[in-house]
């Protein structure tokens, strides 16, 4: 049968129609369309988080000294959210932006995954045994050469079993050089020692204060224990009778929250404090009976204050109106539970001791020392009761050598002087430090005069870092023995940040270690066991967990259950308040280095971490585009000042100081005093990862330390700068 074209066509159409009708009446096309649309929504690279049983685990956050209790929500064995622990004595359910981002520090590729050794400029993974062996070999050699004091440790804290284990190791080894990084904790410690005659930390009863006079402290910017301060601030806001006065040259978030912002010429806070003291004394608003009974040297102080700090003189120096000074003094003295605080921004730099003493004197004058709503001398928590480390002859000799950082010599009340450590290393031919341990600190980023610090670190022959991340200091190290991150770590956390009783928190491991990391406590115990007799004998524990449990004794149960333990029995001893050091160190005002018309000051923000932890990606995301745009950091300038330099909003400029220069952009801000340029701290990292590195500029490379005449610590609050449009 012949099929011609027409037939072929009709057959074809018939077939097609048949297929069409059949297919349309079959589920094939409809199911395919439905399935394809579902397929197009399920790309294999879009993660589908697996479900499972939910559990909650408590711990203490250690990302800043605040010590908030955290509750980690887990699904099976994955951590999925960090929340504040309800009922915790410090934060009662609240949590800050850094704590919330903690999971990005636990998971992710930025971590140091295993012990690393520098090999030809690159990092090479090595085993734990070979890492520890290498360090022990070096330690033994240094000891044989009779220079045990050339081994030093830079750490963020000296409290808690981990810090004390490292300190114990150094003592048994023969080195006095355990150096804590500096902050206002040092300044308060020294001020209290000078005025009260004993070493203690400072504590504040903010929850019961009704008038807080803050000399630049970032109450809403991360000062003290941040969440605790936020909650206290909200409590003050809830009552019409409570007030916060903020004395600062810039409208910070704290100043915006304050009931009154007193705009002051920066660096003159101490003078203002003395001026307020003048008004209080002159108008007899101070607690006469208390002063008579519990102080000495008051008459000299009174004479000095009345002579040199009249409101007129003070007004000229500080830029605060005379009437305002008198009003503040009256309000401060007239409140029922007032307290004065200081330590600018988050309190990361020590500052001027004269200022701390002047502000604390105000507290003494109106009777808020060791009183409800006031300021307390808080002894360090005394729960680590180990026997003294055993010393052999080498150790005994080494311990007696002068500290490399010169602390205790020229400045007898200063225990740690890290900026002098840098100078010591740079000023001598060979570095006095042969081996340096670095734990919980990132001095190559956080210390002022970055160039100088890096120069010093380059000279140190062998640096051991325990960091969990590749930070700036770790990049300079020769070997990394990565510690567990805070969520993987068992550790006691003495809380330092301003509570009125000594509190110890317990950081519990919430997950099994993600990487091949090891607890630093275990590392030191293992190293000790490989060292010589007396060092080995000083470390009787088998591992860190055993050491911690034995040390905590019967406090372990309470700690494991609640997450914290309060030493209710500690009593701040009522020493005599000695006004003499104030008179002796009168007028030690710190002036900014340099000779230009602009002064550069830093500012701290909750959203940019300033300590040794690099800002996680979540926190970086919240940074406004008037602070960071692309990779450019913005500096704040008053529009009046900017006009004088022909600068408009967003302009690119070069900021120069005697210590360095930076590429910046301009943000016009009315909340800053004319003549001041403000730059945020926390940017300008060069390490970590691409979410943080290369963004903005590091403030610390533009400023250098200025030695405080009383403490020797860095009292620089700003530096003269020049800005030119580019």
């Amino acid at each position, binding site marked *: 049968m012949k099929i011609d074209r027409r037939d072929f066509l009709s057959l074809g159409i018939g077939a097609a*129609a048949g297929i069409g009708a*059949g297919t349309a009446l079959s589920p094939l096309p409809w199911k395919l369309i439905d399935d*394809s649309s579902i397929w197009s929504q*399920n790309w294999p690279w879009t993660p589908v988080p697996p479900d499972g*049983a939910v559990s909650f685990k408590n711990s203490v956050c250690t990302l800043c000294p605040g010590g908030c209790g955290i509750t980690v929500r887990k699904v099976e064995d994955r951590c999925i959210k960090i929340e504040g622990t309800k009922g915790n004595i410090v934060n009662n359910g609240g949590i800050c932006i850094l704590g919330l981002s903690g999971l990005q520090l636990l998971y992710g590729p930025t971590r140091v995954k295993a012990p690393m050794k520098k090999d030809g400029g690159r990092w090479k993974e090595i085993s734990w045994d070979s890492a520890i062996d290498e360090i022990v070999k070096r330690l033994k050699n240094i000891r044989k050469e009779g220079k045990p004091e050339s081994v030093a440790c830079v750490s963020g804290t000296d409290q808690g079993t981990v810090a004390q284990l490292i300190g114990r190791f150094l003592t048994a080894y023969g080195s006095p050089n355990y150096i804590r990084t500096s902050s206002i904790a040092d300044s308060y410690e020294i001020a209290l020692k000078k005025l009260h005659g004993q070493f203690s930390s400072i504590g504040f009863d903010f929850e019961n204060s009704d008038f807080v006079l803050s000399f630049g402290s970032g109450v809403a910017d991360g000062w003290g224990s941040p969440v605790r301060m936020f909650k206290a601030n909200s409590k003050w806001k809830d009552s019409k009778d409570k007030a916060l006065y903020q004395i600062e040259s810039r409208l910070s978030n704290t100043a915006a929250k304050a009931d009154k912002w007193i705009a002051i010429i920066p660096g003159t806070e101490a003078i203002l404090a003395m001026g307020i003291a003048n008004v209080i004394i002159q108008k007899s608003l101070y607690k006469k009976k208390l002063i008579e009974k519990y102080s000495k040297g008051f008459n000299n102080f009174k004479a000095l204050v009345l002579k040199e700090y009249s409101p007129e003189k003070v007004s000229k120096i500080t830029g605060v109106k005379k009437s305002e000074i008198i009003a503040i003094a009256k309000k401060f003295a007239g409140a029922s539970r007032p307290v004065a605080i200081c330590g600018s921004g988050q309190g990361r730099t020590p500052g001027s001791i004269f200022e701390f003493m002047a502000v604390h004197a105000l507290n003494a004058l109106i009777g808020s020392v060791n009183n409800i709503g006031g300021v307390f001398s808080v002894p360090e928590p005394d729960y680590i009761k180990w026997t003294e480390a055993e010393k052999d002859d080498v150790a005994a000799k080494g311990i007696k050598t002068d500290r490399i950082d010169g602390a205790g010599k020229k400045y007898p009340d200063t225990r740690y002087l890290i900026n002098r450590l840098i100078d010591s290393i740079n000023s001598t031919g060979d570095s006095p430090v042969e081996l340096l341990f670095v734990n919980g600190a990132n001095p190559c980023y956080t210390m002022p005069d970055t160039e100088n610090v890096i120069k010093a670190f380059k000279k140190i022959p062998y640096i051991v870092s325990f960091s969990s991340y590749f930070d700036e200091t770790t990049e300079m190290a020769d070997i990394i023995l990565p510690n567990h991150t805070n969520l993987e770590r068992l550790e006691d956390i003495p809380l330092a940040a301003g509570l009125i009783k000594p509190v110890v928190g317990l950081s519990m491991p919430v997950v099994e270690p993600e990487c091949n990391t090891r607890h630093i406590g275990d590392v030191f115990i293992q190293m000790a066991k490989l060292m010589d007799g007396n060092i080995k004998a000083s470390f009787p524990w088998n591992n860190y967990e055993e050491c911690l449990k034995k040390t905590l004794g019967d406090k372990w149960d309470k700690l494991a259950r609640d997450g914290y333990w309060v030493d209710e029995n500690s009593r701040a001893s009522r020493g005599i308040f000695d006004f003499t050091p104030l008179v002796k160190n009168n007028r030690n005002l710190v002036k900014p280095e340099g000779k230009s018309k602009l002064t550069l000051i830093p500012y701290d923000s909750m959203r940019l971490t300033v300590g040794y932890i690099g800002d996680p990606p979540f926190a970086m995301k919240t940074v406004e585009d008037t602070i960071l745009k692309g990779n450019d950091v913005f500096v704040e300038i008053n529009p009046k000042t900017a006009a004088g330099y022909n600068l408009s909003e967003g302009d690119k400029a070069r900021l120069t100081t005697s210590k360095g220069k930076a590429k910046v952009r301009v943000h016009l801000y009315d909340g800053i005093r004319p003549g001041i340029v403000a730059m945020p701290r926390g940017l300008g990292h060069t390490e970590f990862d691409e979410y943080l590195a290369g963004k903005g500029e590091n403030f610390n490379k533009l400023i250098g330390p200025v030695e405080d005449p009383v403490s020797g610590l860095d009292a620089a609050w700003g530096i003269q700068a020049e800005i030119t449009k580019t």
Partner: protein
Amino acid sequence: MSTIDDKATEVPEDAAGESAETVPPEQEKEEVAEKKEINKGLVIFVFIAAFVASLIVGWILFPMVLYTQENQPIDFNHALHLEEVENSCESCHFFREDGSYAGVPKLAQCVDCHDEVMGDDLDELAFVENYVQKNIEVPWLIYSQQSDCVFFSHAAHVKAAKMDCVSCHGDIGESTSLKVYEKNIITGISRDIWGKNIGGIKLHSWDRMKMNDCAKCHKEETGNQGACFQCHK
């Protein structure tokens, strides 16, 4: 019209050179009509054939190709275990304290009894050797696993609405072995969601678990289909 006639009268030269004999007009018309009949018939035949063929492809062949067949790692006998427990389905498929549903039980649940081999079943032996002793979770393939966008609350349906398990899951409890797990190769979703029938026709309430199945039941029981966020995340 004339073309056909022309063709009929034209004598085409074929290869052999022979010409067809001319055919008388009446016969021609008949033949043409016949041819038309045949053609039409052929066309209709082809149409029907194609129609039936594509129906077969769509209803029978397509589902065979669309779904993969996998066996469960262990052939679990529900009926046997149901005799041993007290709380029926909830003994192993229980609610946690926080209201979430445990779903398919974990190894810890089975190990309560199957710490060692209890009977002489080969499947149980494989289970104890390969999973219990090595402490590896059995990678069960879950028939009613919905896609990621779905939030299904067992608590709302079992506890609040007091539904039974059979209405949505069928008589799994009475099965003596686990059926083959079939997965759609395009979407990766289990066949039990769309339904056994490729056309989505369902005879029982447990035949299908798509959104409009849920919506229909919601409408009947609660009066409206429910808000989007009730079932999606």
